[in-house]
Each structure stands twice: as C-alpha cells, then as structure tokens.
C-alpha cells in the first residue's frame, strides 16, 4: 500500500480550511501549521516517551501534530482519566515529560526518569478503553495512523468540504481517527469536549454547520432520547457509529432515518489494536444488511478461521474473525521492554466469532474471549476480575454489552465494591449488577461456571 503524504504534514496545504472550537476560536490550517512548527522547534532533542493527557482543544491538537512531526512518541490519555491511571502509566513506562491538558493551560512537567530506548516506528501508546485502570495499552506506529486514516477517508468518501464535530474523546482510537481523517483531506474540525447532553454541543453543531458526527452506541441512545431524528439539521449529512454493537432497534431506526432524509449512515467495526477500523457498513446503501459489520476496510484483509486455525471459506459457517492490514498495531504495551522490542504481529485475532453471508457481508455472532463493551469502553472481564480478586474481593464477573454482572460472596461490602468499581471504571452503577451468593457455581473441573452464574443473576435481576 502506497501512502499519501502524512496527515500531520498534509493538512497545511489546505490553507483555507480551519479548526473551530466551542469557545469561539477559529484557526486556519496555515496558522495551525505555524503553531505546530513553533511547538516542534522545542521538541527536536526530546528523548524517550512523553505522557500526553489530551482533550479536544486547539492547543492539544497543535501539540499532538508537533509530536507526530518531530517523531516524539507518547502515551495518549484522556483528560478525564483518574490520577490512578496516570500514575500507573508513569510507573509502567517512565515517561521523561508529562504534557497535561487537564486544566485550561497546558502544563509541562519534566520527570526524573532517564530516557530509555523506544522502537523507532512507535508513534503513540493508546489504552484499549477510555478510562479503565486495568485496561491494556497498544502501540501504534506512524504507518498505522496514516494507513488507518487513508482507509477511512476512502470508504467515507471524505472531502475538504466536510466539517466534523468531536463528539468523542481525543484520546480514544475512534475519536482520534475522526481528527486524523479530517486533517488528511483538509476538512474542517470543530473541537469540543461537550457531551451530547450538554446544550452547547447542539448549539455549536448547528451554528458551526457540522456535516458529520460520530457516536458509540450510548450516543445513539441519547440521540434517540433527545428525538434527534426530528431535529432540523440541514448541514449534518453523515452519521458514523462504532465502539460496540448498536442495538438492532436503534440501528434500524437510524437506517430508516438516514435513507428517509437522504443522509449517510456508516456502522463500523474495529479495535484499538487495528488503530481503529477493520470493517464498515454503508447502511444507507445496504439497509437489508443492518446488524452486519459489512465488509473489510480498503487496504485490509478480513477472514474467518475455525478452532483448528483453518480458514473458513464457506458462507454461513462460524469462525474467529482475523484481520490483516497496515493498521495492525506494533503490539501490546504491557512492559517497558515491549516499547523497545514490539511483538509486530502480522495479523490480529479479534476474538470475535462470526460468519460471512452469501453476499460476502460479515456478521458477528459471539465472542471468543471474555470481553464486554460498555459505553464504548472495552472491559476485559478476566483482567478486571483478577485485579479485584488480587485486592481480596471474592467474586466472579460476567456480563454483556448492556451491563457488567458481578457475583459476590456473601458478607462482602457491596457498597465499597460499587465505589471501587466507579473509581476504576467510571461506570454508572446502573450498568453494574451485583448479586450476592452463598456458594459460587463451579464446573466439574473447578472452574467458574459463567453460564450458570449468568442464569442466577438473570433469575434474581430483571
């Protein structure tokens, strides 16, 4: 795959376009470029990893682009993560500097760590879920970022006339890909950290004429509650959805909305391990395929393998989805050694089980590993369970993409657990169901019987 000029260089050729913010600022891309160059001038001799705490602001965007241009690798975290997550990252990766956008003004802090070697292709380290303390992080290369952006630009047909509003966090693979793709084609950006439940979000979206917005399933729930489909939004032409499976009901409602109002609606599938994107469905062109993840993104390869690792070639037969492409990460970032010598996987085992229909569309039917996705955050049930058990909690976790389910031994303090979970995951307690039990159901070979646990939980709870 031949790459175009990198987006962190290329946007500057679209001098006339600009980035807007919710504070009334406008910065043309030629001015943005000057600021990026100014920041970059101070980055030349930077060594080691930086820790970058990001938000949707002009200063943050400027620094992000300067870091990419100067090839200073960084760990990217959202400004809303807890201090515990930041501390854990500092401990794990020993960054030499911290760039913090949590307050209005940027704060640079040099740490006492000595610069350690870093793989030369490493652009950034991204947690696989927004704010989970036990999340794993992955390493993304410069090529990954560019290839992912190019592929998305192609299938979305993005042009410089587009103008996206940031409805997602900057430090989230999906949110970041919205920014990267728009810079690549020189399209406009509206930067805001307002949520869809903040009035200013809708004011900015309207007054600054956003042409597209992106959402995870939870956003579509909010949009439905706010009667989005009845809003007059003449400039808004494209909706994209990713970050977990949208309920079939909402998917069908929004598909009908898009078709009925001559808008475009893309339902997309991916993982942070693939920088963001793996497959997409242009719903407005394929209304009969709502619920499928569509087909592979341009430049990638998606196929199924059975439990023996043999490729499934027949349609309507299940297998694990395997992805190959230039956007497959450098590897997991579990330790500092990973940062020096990444695993460089040539393919991605998604852990999702699916099948291909007779028309070549992929459908996900289940999951191989124990992951759930809540509010767009991927939660590794085993990792979370281990972390909690290590702290002395006697419990097991199950759940699905609607709720985290906990089966807790009698006599433990469930309120303390709820609080701890909130601190760890920032999950609203309505998304967490706790059932206390005398004796855990176990399988014959002494393993937790998760299906039985779910049965018990669902028998007790609505």
């Amino acid at each position, binding site marked *: 795959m031949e790459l175009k000029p990198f987006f962190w260089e290329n946007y500057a050729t679209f001098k006339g376009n600009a980035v807007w913010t919710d504070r009334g600022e406008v910065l043309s891309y030629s001015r943005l470029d000057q600021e990026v160059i100014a920041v970059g001038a101070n980055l030349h001799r930077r060594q080691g990893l930086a820790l970058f705490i990001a938000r949707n602001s002009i200063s943050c965007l400027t620094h992000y682009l300067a870091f990419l241009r100067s090839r200073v690798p960084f760990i990217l975290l959202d400004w809303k993560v807890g201090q515990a997550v930041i501390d854990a990252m500092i401990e794990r990766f020993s960054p030499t500097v911290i760039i913090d956008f949590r307050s209005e003004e940027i704060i640079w802090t040099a740490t006492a760590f000595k610069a350690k070697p870093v793989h030369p292709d490493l652009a950034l380290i991204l947690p696989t879920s927004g704010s989970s303390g036990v999340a794993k992080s992955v390493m993304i290369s410069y090529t990954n970022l560019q290839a992912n952006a190019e592929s998305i630009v192609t299938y979305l047909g993005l042009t410089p006339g587009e103008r996206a509003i940031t409805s997602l966090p900057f430090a989230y693979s999906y949110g970041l890909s919205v920014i990267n793709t728009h810079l690549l084609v020189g399209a406009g950006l509206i930067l805001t950290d307002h949520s869809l*439940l*903040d009035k200013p979000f809708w004011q900015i979206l309207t007054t600054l004429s956003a042409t597209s917005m992106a959402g995870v399933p939870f956003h579509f729930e*909010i949009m439905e509650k*706010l009667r989005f489909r009845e809003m007059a939004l003449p400039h808004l032409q494209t909706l994209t959805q990713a970050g977990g499976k949208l309920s079939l009901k909402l998917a069908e409602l929004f598909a009908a909305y898009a078709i009925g109002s001559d808008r475009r609606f893309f339902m997309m599938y991916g993982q942070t391990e693939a920088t963001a994107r793996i497959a997409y469905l242009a719903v407005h062109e394929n209304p009969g395929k709502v619920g499928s993840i569509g087909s592979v993104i341009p430049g990638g390869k998606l196929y199924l393998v059975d439990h023996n690792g043999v490729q499934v070639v027949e349609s309507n037969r299940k297998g694990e989805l395997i992805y190959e492409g230039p956007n497959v990460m450098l590897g997991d970032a579990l330790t500092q050694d990973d940062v020096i010598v990444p695993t460089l996987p040539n393919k991605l085992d998604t852990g999702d089980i699916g099948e291909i229909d007779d028309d070549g569309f992929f459908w996900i039917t289940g999951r191989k590993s124990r992951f759930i996705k809540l509010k767009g955050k991927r939660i590794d049930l085993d990792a979370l369970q281990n972390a909690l058990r290590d702290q002395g909690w006697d419990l097991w976790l199950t759940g699905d993409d609607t709720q985290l389910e906990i089966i807790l031994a009698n006599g433990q303090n469930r309120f303390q657990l709820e609080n701890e979970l*909130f601190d760890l995951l920032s999950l609203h307690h309505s998304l967490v169901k706790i059932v206390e039990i005398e004796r855990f159901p176990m399988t014959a070979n002494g393993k937790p019987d998760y299906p039985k646990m779910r049965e018990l939980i669902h028998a007790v709870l609505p």
Partner: protein
Amino acid sequence: MSHSKFELKQLFSSTLGIPSELVTDELAYNADPRWDSTAHLQLVMAIENTFGITLEMDDMLDMSSVAKAAEILKKYGVVWN
C-alpha cells in the same frame, strides 16, 4: 398531583448513587463525577417514569441541578408541597 421535594431528592439519590443527605438543591450535572452523561440519561428516564411526563429536549438538557429540575417539572404540572 402534588409531590414532595423529598421524593425528588430520593429519585436523584437512587439514580445517581449519591447518598440522599448529599443531594442538595445545588447538586449539579458534571460537578459530581457520579452525575455524568450516563447518569443524566438515567435521571431523565427516571423522572419521566415517576412523574408520568415526556420532557422536551431543551428541558432534558437544562436540568442541570436539583433546583433546576424542580423548577422545570412545574412546567409539566408537577406541584411541590
């Protein structure tokens, strides 16, 4: 139908997971980490169910404190005793 403010505060307390003694008139959206966007959506639905009303979009978004919620609910015929 008339309702008590206590009832409203109980609703906030149970929906947001904040002890009722901390639910004051001034408690505000986004000021407490527990009252985030997920919680706000839950709150809107709980209020609609409890009072048997359907909120306008602007009112959902304006409901940024307990006091504001009480005020907005008056528009929907809720009487505070």
